């Protein structure tokens, strides 16, 4: 089947700085792809390249099967939403929405109809005659989404659209974007540094670092089977416990304790792997209290710091000489100095080569 967006061998250099390196990426029709990574990883740059706002140094970009590498942004069949909204301050909301259509020279009633449809969909009909300065942040971002919507394009590009909003609005608009995607079934490429946004919205997530895609997979796979230490550490909050040790013969020796790894799902061919390795355990996969002794590995731990989050509690403790955090039910009323029984199963953990950081 034809891909909606295809990036082939894409590189971009700013002088000597290699921002994107030999990037390959295929986005299916109607897919919601999230580009996720720390700031400076090149995710926004990649989006700008797809939009045609930056000239690429090498490689090709295809949108709906057409090579658009040299095309102007307007000819690529894209709509774009920016972090700072980028509404034209001197134009009313209606003018903002219709600007692109007026530039394209569409007939008046067609413009009116499309503006009406988009503003109905985003519930901004009442705001049409206001100036952007008289809108709240959430309303401005709706208008910005509307401006992409009226263009009737195949691909939507979102450049951190919710980063300027406060937490509650962000959660509301997140759901709304998801609803919009279900309704329109367009391809959407969405840049963010917020892992919650990425996990909740994406069909697939591309995690980027230093201009290279580290892992491109479903949120489930990225969370449960991170391909390397970077992905494992980036996804999840609080982040994964990394315990360094030596792996050999069905157990990893962490210095003072040994954790059995028989139940661990090795990558094909790695079953006999031995050497310096890092065991990654998610704090939420740790079993606390009575159930702990049923786990393949369990130990007693003294709690050093307690962080109550409301719904649950994060506690800091030690496993041997390693710092170790776990997430527990808030009802347990954990307190500093208390000793609890903790257990986990290597089947849900991750093992990485200590040298290369790659999943074993």
């Amino acid at each position, binding site marked *: 089947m034809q891909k909606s967006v295809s990036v082939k061998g894409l590189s971009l250099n700013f002088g000597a700085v290699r921002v994107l390196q030999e990037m390959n990426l295929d986005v299916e029709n109607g897919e919601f792809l999230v580009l996720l990574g720390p700031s400076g990883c090149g995710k926004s740059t990649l989006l*700008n390249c797809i*939009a*045609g*706002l930056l000239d690429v140094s090498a490689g090709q970009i295809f949108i709906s099967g057409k090579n658009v590498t040299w095309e*102007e*942004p*307007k000819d690529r069949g*894209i*709509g*774009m939403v*920016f*972090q*700072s*909204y*980028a*509404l*034209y*301050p*001197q134009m009313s909301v209606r003018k903002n929405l219709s*600007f*692109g259509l007026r*530039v*394209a020279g569409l007939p008046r009633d067609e413009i009116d109809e499309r503006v009406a449809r988009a503003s109905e969909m985003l519930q901004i009909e009442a705001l049409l005659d206001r*100036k*952007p*300065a*008289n*809108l*709240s*942040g959430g309303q*401005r971002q709706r208008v*910005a989404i509307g*401006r992409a919507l009226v*263009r009737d394009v195949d691909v939507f590009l979102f*450049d951190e659209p919710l980063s*300027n909003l406060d937490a509650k609005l962000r959660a509301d608009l997140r759901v709304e974007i998801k609803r919009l995607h279900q309704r329109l079934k367009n391809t959407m490429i969405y840049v963010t540094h917020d892992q919650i946004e990425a996990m909740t919205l994406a069909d697939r997530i591309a995690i980027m670092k230093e201009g290279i895609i580290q892992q491109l997979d479903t949120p489930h796979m990225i969370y449960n089977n991170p391909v390397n230490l970077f992905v494992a550490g980036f996804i999840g909050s609080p982040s994964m416990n990394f315990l360094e040790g030596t792996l050999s013969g069905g157990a990893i020796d962490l210095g003072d304790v040994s954790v059995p790894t028989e139940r661990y799902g090795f990558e094909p061919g790695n079953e006999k792997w031995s050497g310096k390795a890092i065991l990654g355990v998610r704090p939420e996969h740790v079993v606390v209290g009575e159930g702990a002794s049923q786990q393949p590995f369990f130990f007693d731990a003294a709690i050093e710091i307690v962080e109550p989050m409301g719904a649950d509690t994060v506690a800091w403790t030690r496993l041997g000489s390693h710092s170790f955090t776990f997430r527990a039910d808030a009802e347990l009323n954990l307190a500093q100095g208390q000793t609890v029984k903790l257990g986990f199963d290597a089947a849900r953990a991750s093992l990485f080569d200590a040298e290369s950081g790659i999943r074993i």
Partner: protein
Amino acid sequence: MSNPTVISTTVALDAVSGRTDFAGPQGPRPQPFFTPKRVIIYSILFVACLYYLFPMYIMVMTSFKTMPEIRFGNIFAPPVEFTGEAWVKAWSSACTGLTCQGLSPGFWNSVKILIPSVLVSTAVAAVNGYALVNWKFKGSEIFFAVLIFGSFIPYQVFLYPLVMITRELKIFGTIWAVILVHTIFGMPILTLLFRNYFASLPVELFKAARVDGAGFWRIFLEVMLPMSLPIVVVALILQVTGIWNDFLFGAVFAGTPNLPMTVQLNNIVNSAQGTPEYNVNMAATMLTGLVPLIVYFLSGRLFVRGVAAGAVKG
């Protein structure tokens, strides 16, 4: 009072605000008017005010006196015999060299020079600044650096080459020569002004307009220009006052029939014939300074208006 919610809110309010019988400072800090700091600041401002207004006062008073009264020498005294004759003479019949038509021809010459040079230089500089920020081309930084460098060279250095250039263009001694020279010399500083202003606007605005399909001129005219009112006002003020007050280029390039007001004023004031008519001189000087003054008074408010409000995160 039977409504339970009302009762509970009052209780809650009480709990928050509490009783107001604390001892010691409370509420807003009192701000007495006569603090030492204020007294000093206002005294200095007052003295500075006098320093600048006193010559102004003498000019105004003298301009409304008759010559015999001026000869008495009481320059601080208000006019005994109030007359506007000097103003009329300065405007319409004082001798500026060979002709005796007052400043009025010079005024209209200045207007004819001012309007095209201000409009053209501001318009071109706005496009320059926009292009330098949003449509970077190979060597645009160098181009900009050269342009800025140009503004640091004293005008007098260019005078002779410019005379030759305008002569070759066959416009030397015409009003077009002055207009051209003013337009060129306004360019570096105005371009710098516009470039910095456009660079301060969010670049995403430009990107959004490009995604919307607008081209160079459309983005400039429909997106950028409507947001540039504050900087356009600054540019206009700079150019209007600069060009109006110019003496050198007017005297060199305009040719006798087109001499601007400043040159004519000089001819009246520095006239070597007859007794100096101080009242006419004062009136003429004030007439000449009136235009920049009015521009400052009218446009001061626009300086501070934030037109870009609402473009980005509020």
